[in-house]
């Protein structure tokens, strides 16, 4: 719902930054984050709204960041591609593919050096595994048996490029074994399946048994970057989109809960209304927030302590 609102409001041209929605992929961060504590850490890439919110990231600060305001989580300097919320352990997202994977590995290592018990989750897409930096990070995590869960959201595409022209026919999770990292594949559109796989991986990390690579099959329902669909581009078929739409993780789980009697219509409505209120509040907050003042342009290039 947050992203649907973003999609709707994006046309107002007040969120002036490249914005990658994760509609269709929501089950993964939800299933993973369920196992994380506030002191566990998360890193992400360009498609990070879901990762941020699932970890408990501040919604107001995120929306304000998209609106480029001083009250944004990165004071407007980052935008959608650079979310951060230290209070909840969301350590940062950055759009250069695979760039935060090694940073996450380092954070796990740094926490261990400090004697802190923290699990680190790093999210990335299928294309990020084509970057050498990804392999370097996996190798080091394995050498040091660091408490990292690598979560690959394999949505079959890199922008408009299908997997088959970019990678050989083998599961991405096979890369784990090569690097001495435990690995598994699962259905990324089934939040319970995600929850189950993540449970093992997070527990393994917490026990000190080292890193795990989880590959989740999923699908991006919107365009790569921006608020719309992209059927007209023709790089994927209407049937393919429809088939995945039918497996939309939110709807699937909502229906399952309803069928199980765990969620009645009234509760559902209440939850939706509550969420809508929160979103409206965040948008109102963002729109009412000031833009950074001109003197903020050159601030934070260098730490004020260090120069």
């Amino acid at each position: 719902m947050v992203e649907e609102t973003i999609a709707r409001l994006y046309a107002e041209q007040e969120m002036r930054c490249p914005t990658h929605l994760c509609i269709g992929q929501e089950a993964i961060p939800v299933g993973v984050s369920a196992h994380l504590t506030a002191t566990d850490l998360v890193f992400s890439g360009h498609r990070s709204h879901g990762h941020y919110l699932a970890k408990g990231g501040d919604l107001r600060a995120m929306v304000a960041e998209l609106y480029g305001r001083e009250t944004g989580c990165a004071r407007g300097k980052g935008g959608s591609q650079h979310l951060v919320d230290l209070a909840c352990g969301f350590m940062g997202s950055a759009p250069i593919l695979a760039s935060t994977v090694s940073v996450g590995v380092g954070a796990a290592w740094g926490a261990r050096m400090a004697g802190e018990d923290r699990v680190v989750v790093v999210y990335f897409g299928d294309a990020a595994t084509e970057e050498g930096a990804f392999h370097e990070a996996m190798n080091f995590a394995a050498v040091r048996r660091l408490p990292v869960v690598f979560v690959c959201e394999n949505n079959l595409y890199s922008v408009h490029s299908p997997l088959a022209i970019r990678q050989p026919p083998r599961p991405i999770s096979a890369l784990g074994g090569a690097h001495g990292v435990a690995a598994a594949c699962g259905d990324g559109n089934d939040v319970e399946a995600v929850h189950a796989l993540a449970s093992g991986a997070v527990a393994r990390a917490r026990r000190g048994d080292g890193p795990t690579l989880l590959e989740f099959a999923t699908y991006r329902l919107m365009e790569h970057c921006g608020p719309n669909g992209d059927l007209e581009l023709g790089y994927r078929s209407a049937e393919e989109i429809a088939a995945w739409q039918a497996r939309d993780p939110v709807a699937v789980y909502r229906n399952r809960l309803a069928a199980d009697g765990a969620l009645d219509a009234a509760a559902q409505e209440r939850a939706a209304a509550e969420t809508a209120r929160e979103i409206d509040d965040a948008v109102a907050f963002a729109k009412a927030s000031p833009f950074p003042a001109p003197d903020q342009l050159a601030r934070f290039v260098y730490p004020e302590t260090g120069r």
Partner: protein
Amino acid sequence: MTRQLRYFEALREAQAQILASDPRSYLIGLGAPGPTGIFGTTAGLQQRFGAERVLDMPASENGMTGVALGTALMGRRPIVIHIRVDFAVLAMEPLVNQVAKWHYMYGGKMTAPLTVRMIIGRGWGQGPQHSQSLQAWFAHVPGLKVVMPTTAHDAKGMLIAAVEDDAPVILFEHRWLYNVSGPVPEEMYRVPLDQAATRRRGRDVTLAGTSYMTLECLRAADLLARIGIDADVIDLRTLTPIDVPALTESVGRTGHLVVADTGHVQFGAGAEVCAAVAERAFAALKAPPRRIGLPHVPAPTTPALADLYYPRAREIARAALDSLGSAAALPPEPDDPRRWKDVPDPSFNGPY
């Protein structure tokens, strides 16, 4: 010769003609054959030339640069495309250690005729990792040629010349030039990779620009003209070499130099221009050469700061006035109804 094309169309036409005329050539980049075709510059080319001439690639900027080098050693003429300079940073090792030096370090036995297109991002919150303009790095490296076409005409002619050149050539394309149109001949033609172009003749001050900043220089010249100052505008076009003779000729007439570059000022291309002109035309300079470019700050995402970050025509004109020691006031800004300047000025669409 009155046909007008936009910059991205000129690039596409250049590539189509290269692919059609030289069977050794091919084109590779993330999304090159895709439906949006790298901002239109490769749209339709795979359909026309086939899947072995216009190729997508894995997100492996380093490895794919080495791969392209390998094909070049075997006689191919690759055009490698990076949709942002920022992503090409992953390819510095093969570009700088291997591609640039391959001809030299094996004693001239091989050549490495790669052309690498790099797009400089700007606007709509591209932010710190999608809008770097690092041409000064590449121009620092012997073995590479670095060019920055400003006009649609030069985009086509320099890209063709780059592919035909036996040296590796890095072509920087500023995203804000893509929709700017200008006259582009239909036939295949070459624009030399070592010459600046004078875009406006004037006698009072030399404004030298790289890429998009040349347009801002032209607009600055308009502003100055309105207060009676007559600027020479030089489109640098190439960095290796910088066309120092063109600069010294101009400065010899004007005595004043303002350089406007798309990158950071500090240790940037403007430093080389100023140093070179100071070395070779010191006596002609009546005032210190001045530099316009990005401050020593990463690119902020919010338009509220990005608008302050990017210098425009007024800053260039003001530097010219400073150089001339003039206390004149610039004419007022033309009315711009846009709240933010994070998309190209619609009045900048050419023809140039």
